[in-house]
């Protein structure tokens, strides 16, 4: 085709228009994409039901609430220990020493982080944080209330919580290994030993509530206790769960993993500054988690005084359970690690099994009990 | 543990002197006796004490520097059932005097002998563990409890211990 200058000249406006249109579509495309993102964000964050989910996950009963409870738990433990041990506990920072933990945390964070030459640096930095995350995550399955004021409800949340908790001594063992110190290594293996001793009795103890409720969800188990608490039907399981939980956390008298007079501070020996703070918090978070589990499994969860909100009932029972943790941990001499295995396997395990069997026999042969449970009566 | 009949200090001394005539005795008080033992007879005498006194408690061994390369060693035993105190005195001479170790008879003497060796330079032959007990390694062969050991600063070079650094005047900025 012959080149026609005038046709070409007439085509220029079309060409410019095409470019403009392309730019327009590009801009509009970006705009609508951004708009879509904003809309999605709006829908997922600020739309009332989604916003409230985030509120629950972050503020109450989620992360912030758990961290504040953690701070309270540290203060409560120290204060109670002080009172039991004929001294006053923290008094200087804030009212009744309430700000002591903040002062301690600031001091610890401001400290130099010393990483031993033999340590595997990357893991050494990573593990304390991982530990705290692993311990804090299961809190999302705790049924603080039956409706609304809980975060997540899975049909297998009980199993999932135990799966998370099994990771804790693995992290401890790894931390002992990567610290590059003999004392840390011994402490890591002792932590694994503690878990080995305490885990089976603890899970067997939680089998009782799961069977009676006919559910593996913590929410389901809590809901099953509206007419009768499982502490009534399974009192021995409550006791064995408490003891096994204390052994699993590794506080006195089962504190062989961090026995300070024997192995300095066990697997935490080499941690300094913020790393130590994280492991310290993780220990208290684990105690709190077990307290919350005991309330959900045995003490009826949110069931309680009818004129109080369910979450308040739960928290009251939670505090009482936590008090028992502190009480037990300040009343006994430390056990040797072989004695821990001995006690857990020889006494706790048969007792836990026995109570499950007794409860099942009672359901079959005692009329009236089954009607209280969601298994359904005859 | 055989409940042997009681033995008095003088009886024990007589038995020991009968066996080892070179030993001489001197009373110290009621049922307390001192035996002057030649250095080559020390194992025999300590063995006899172990055999004849069933609950002999090895209290201590220590040296005394009498200057001019003369040393004395004192061994002290106490027996509760007999209320008896026995003190052995051994005279030694020389720059590095030697004596037989008795810590296989009374294990409690092991550390006393180690200490006497590092402090006075008295060698205990056949001692199982002749390391320094209390002193740092720099003071091996210096024998601080000898009288000729001066404790002023003039001997600081000899010990090999670095003298303390003067404190810097301007804070920690130098380093």
């Amino acid at each position, binding site marked *: 085709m012959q080149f026609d200058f005038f046709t070409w000249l007439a085509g220029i406006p079309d060409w410019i228009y095409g470019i403009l249109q392309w730019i327009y579509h590009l801009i509009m495309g970006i705009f609508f994409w951004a708009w879509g993102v904003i809309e999605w964000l709006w829908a997922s964050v600020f739309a009332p039901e989604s916003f409230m989910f985030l509120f629950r996950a972050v503020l109450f009963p989620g992360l912030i609430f758990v961290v504040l409870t953690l701070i309270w738990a540290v203060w409560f433990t120290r204060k109670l*220990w002080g009172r*039991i*041990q*004929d*001294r006053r506990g923290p008094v200087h920072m804030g009212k009744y020493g309430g700000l002591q933990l903040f002062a301690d945390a600031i001091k610890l964070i401001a400290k130099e982080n010393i990483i031993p030459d033999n340590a595997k640096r990357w893991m050494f930095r990573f593990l304390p944080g991982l530990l705290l995350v692993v311990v804090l995550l299961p809190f999302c399955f705790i049924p603080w209330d039956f409706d609304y004021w809980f975060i997540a409800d899975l049909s297998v949340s009980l199993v999932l919580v135990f799966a998370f908790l099994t990771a804790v001594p693995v992290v401890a063992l790894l931390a002992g290994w990567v610290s590059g110190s*003999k*004392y840390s290594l*011994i402490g890591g293996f002792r932590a694994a030993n503690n878990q080995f001793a305490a885990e089976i009795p603890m899970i067997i103890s939680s089998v009782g509530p799961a069977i009676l409720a006919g559910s593996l969800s913590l929410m389901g188990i809590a809901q099953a206790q509206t007419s009768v608490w499982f502490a009534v039907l399974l009192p021995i399981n409550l006791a064995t769960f408490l003891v096994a939980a204390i052994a699993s956390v590794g506080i*006195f*008298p089962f*504190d*062989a993993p961090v*026995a*300070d*007079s*024997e192995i*300095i501070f066990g697997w935490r020996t080499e941690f300094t500054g913020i790393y130590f703070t994280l492991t310290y918090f993780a220990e208290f978070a684990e105690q709190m988690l077990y307290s919350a589990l005991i309330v959900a499994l045995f003490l009826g969860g949110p069931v309680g005084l009818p004129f109080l909100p369910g979450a308040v009932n739960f928290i009251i029972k939670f505090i009482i359970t936590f008090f028992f943790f502190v009480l037990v941990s*300040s*009343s*006994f*001499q*430390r*056990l*040797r*690690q*072989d*004695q821990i295995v001995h006690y857990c396997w020889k006494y706790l395990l048969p007792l836990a099994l026995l109570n499950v069997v007794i409860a099942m026999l009672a359901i079959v042969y005692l009329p009236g009990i089954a009607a209280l449970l969601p298994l359904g009566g005859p | *543990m055989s409940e042997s009949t009681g033995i008095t200090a003088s009886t024990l001394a007589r038995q020991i002197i009968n066996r080892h005539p070179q030993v001489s005795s001197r009373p*110290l008080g009621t049922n307390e006796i001192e035996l002057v033992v030649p250095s080559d007879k020390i194992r025999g005498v300590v063995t006899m004490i172990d055999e004849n006194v069933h*609950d*002999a*408690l*090895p*209290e*201590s061994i*220590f040296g*005394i*520097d009498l200057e001019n390369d003369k040393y004395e060693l*004192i061994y*002290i035993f*106490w027996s*509760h059932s007999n*209320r008896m*105190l026995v*003190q052995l005195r051994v005279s030694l001479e020389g720059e590095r005097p030697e004596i037989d170790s008795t810590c296989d008879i*009374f*294990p*409690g*003497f*092991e*550390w*006393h002998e180690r200490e006497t060796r590092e*402090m006075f330079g008295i060698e205990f032959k056949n001692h199982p563990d002749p390391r*320094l*007990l*209390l*002193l740092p390694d720099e003071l091996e062969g210096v024998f*601080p*409890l000898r009288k000729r050991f001066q*404790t002023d600063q003039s001997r600081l070079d000899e010990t090999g211990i670095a003298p303390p650094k003067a404190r810097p005047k301007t804070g920690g900025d130098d380093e």
Partner: protein
Amino acid sequence: MSPDILDEAMEIWFGPQHVSAHGWATKLTLVGDYVVECDPNAGYFHRSAEKVLEYKNFRQGSLVLERMCMLEAFLAEYPYVAAVEKIAELEVPERAKIMRTIMMEMSRLHSIQFWWGQFNAELGFFTMALWPWVDREYSLDAFEELTGSRHTVSYSTPGGVKYDFTDKVLKQLDRAIKRFEDRLPKFRDMQMGSPTFRARTKGIGQYTVKQGLKWGLSGPPIKACGVPMDLRKDAPDPNLAYNMCDWEVPITENPDHPGESDALDRMEQRFKEAETSVQIIKQLLPQLPEGPIIDPKARAKANRLPEGEAYARVEGTRGITSLWLKTQDKAQTAYRAKIRGPCIASYYALKDLVPGAKFADFIVIFGSLDPYPGWWDR
């Protein structure tokens, strides 16, 4: 022990930076959880006291000795004073004798209270650790009122004592004794009735009298085997008032193994020791006669001593504490002073006592013998 086992052995230094190792270090060889070799090391607390004593005059010397063990300062300083009194042939007034004895028994009581706390802290039971330490404050208050110092008391001096009892001191002594007697049944219940304590100490660190004597042990570790070996009865010091009151040497019999003692027996023995101390103090306090507290010529006589040798011993809290003193004629300082602390034997005994024990039991064995590093390092 075959050489292959030692291939897997781990050498571990228990101290000198260990939290329980205050001034000592022990090298342990571990195979698995068992200690196969124990090598106690001394010298971390060495202050060359014997050389220092050659430069101190006879009234200053006891100040060096009380720094060997500040927990039993009244007892620790006494051998030097007694040796000087023997060489200088000083007379001690009756009142000073009784005051010395009372304060020495108070010192023993205080030392045992401290040891309870320390041993329980080593066993991981801080409640029982802090309770005796509160009572200990009452004794320390009395010491402070009497001498102006809580630990380095420098009370006895050749020829008598330095400070007279005031009404306030007597009141405070009374208060300390009353407080102790109030709390003793509670302590005994908490300690001997605790199942975890029995589990940790029964059969741990067991030895026979013959073994103990060969190592050179004396005091409570031997009395716990059932042998009433006590210098207060065996060789009564004429300058002390132990024969002015009626008391029995406390012994503990192991019901299963006569003539042997384990950590549990040694704890029981410490209870009896403290009771005996209180018994002696309570009998001596009313017998306190009026009169001078020091021989007025003693000061001049103790300035320069005649030539002589003296061996002075006292039954300390931890065993036979003695000082061998040699003086030259008209000398102002000692020619040779040998301090014999009781703990050199108990620390040495670890070498034979620990192998075969579990690693966690090492600190129990160590603590039950109550060694204080000042006594072997001097």
